[in-house]
């Protein structure tokens, strides 16, 4: 997972801002961005935030917890509904964002920046392995494990997901 240099790439996709400088786990709407050698930040994309509702509370597992891809790294509460935040990668939790715990609205206002959630120790091999488990994936809206890395593929997945949600009335037009 190569770190990106310079300004982060952003695009407007189906009415949402989409950062193209990171990888995405399509089912959970989590993004993964390198933040240093063998470490990556994890957060939730704006579509995941939107479908959660107004965030009331966030909590994360303690620093040092060993995560496996698909396991919870915390809990999100919105509309009195508590649900797990699912890690898109395996690795130890190296840091948690106290600011977003104090003010969960940060994740809504700045999902790609100040609203990051945790940092995990993650290797390129670990992410690549997660990606390879997804070789049998189907359409770009599909619920599946693995991370999307290619900007064109990310944009296509995101646009299709927004269209699907709008068709179902899940989010506003």
């Amino acid at each position, binding site marked *: 997972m190569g770190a990106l240099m310079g300004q982060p790439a952003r695009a407007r996709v189906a009415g949402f801002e989409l950062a193209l400088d990171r990888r995405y786990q399509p089912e959970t709407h989590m993004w993964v961005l390198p933040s240093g050698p063998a470490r990556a930040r994890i957060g939730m994309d704006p579509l995941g935030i939107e*479908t*959660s*509702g107004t965030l*009331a*509370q966030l*909590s*994360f597992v*303690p620093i040092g917890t060993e995560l496996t891809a698909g396991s919870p790294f915390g*809990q999100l*509460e*919105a*509309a*009195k*509904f*508590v*649900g*797990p935040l699912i890690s898109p990668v395996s690795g130890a939790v190296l840091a948690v964002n*106290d*600011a977003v*715990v*104090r*003010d969960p*609205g940060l994740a809504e206002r700045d999902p790609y920046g100040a609203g990051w959630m945790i940092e995990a120790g993650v290797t390129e091999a670990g992410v690549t392995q997660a990606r390879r488990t997804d070789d049998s994936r189907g359409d770009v809206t599909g619920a599946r494990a693995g991370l999307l890395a290619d900007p064109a593929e990310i944009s296509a997945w995101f646009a299709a997901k927004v269209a699907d*949600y709008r068709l179902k009335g*899940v*989010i506003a037009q």
Partner: protein
Amino acid sequence: MAEPLSPEAGALRPVAGALPPEVGALRPEVGALRVVDFGLSSPLRSQTLWHAIGFGVSAGAPTTLSFTRPAAPYVCLGYHGALDDVDQEYCRAHGLPVLRRMVGGGTVYLDADQVFFQICLPAQAVPPVRWRALRMLLEPAVTAFRAVGVPAALDDDLEICVGHRKVCGHGAGQIEEAVVVCGNLIQRFDHERAARVLALPGPAQREQTLALMRRFVAATPVDPAAFQAAMVSAYAAALGLRAVPGQLNPVERRTVADLDDKFSSEAWLAGPARPLPAAGTDRPARRVKVRAGVWTLASEHDGAQVTASVVRGTVDRVRLRAGGSDWPARQAELAEQAVTGIPWGSVADVLADFGEPGRRLAAAFAAAGPGAL
């Protein structure tokens, strides 16, 4: 945990009309809605029994509608609730256990005048969007309330109300691969004690909280057996399932024992780790949510103290103390009159007319919101 799980725990208790013959009778092919009535439970078991069902449904047990009623009063925190928000000394002195649940919502006072219900089903069976899942799983409860003569409605905040009053508390959560929504039939509500168990910075906020609870939270003293029967019919119909009496399976029974231990532990009661306030910031405001859009708050900034009730974005009542100044009491009264009845967002502008004390009071207001208000 010393509390034994009696052999009959989880067995279906008689619920008058709980299984109407028409429910599912014409659709024998449909799946089962397991109905479990735990009857009276200890405070601890009134939580752990249905949490165990969550783990059971996650592991493959059928969709389940369960009921219980606590045999004794207690206080229950939502998953993210702060233990410090409970007056633990008062609770200890009055023998009120304090427990934490795995689902969301606020801190609540619970007693034997409330019948709890829980609907639990596989996560894949509910919409991925939370408000849709909640609406889907609360609407049958509204149907049941109406069936027993309560003109309830599910409002835009997804609260079950009669007019402007909430008549049913609820919380929801995902337990492994199951989703559970819980709520209650409130036959009588002890508003005074519900306000008293909260840790609040002063009597002014407690008095305002009690007043708002009396105004916005109401009991519906209907026949609980009729309500439970209506619930069974409504959920079976809404989910297209056939209601079947049931009980906990062996794995769920073992899970109850595990959860008894977990819920009794200090670590679980303490709740998720929360960061310390950022350096240099005011002491966090104390906010109490009475129902959606209805809050009391107590906040301070640089000696200025605000205690306020906020209803649907408007300051309903307020008590202002500038502190540390020679601000005349008459000025405080005038400021209180000026702020009362105005939108929350206009408070700073109004208080700007009250000089330096007004600016400090405006900062205290700002420290309390507006995020969750």
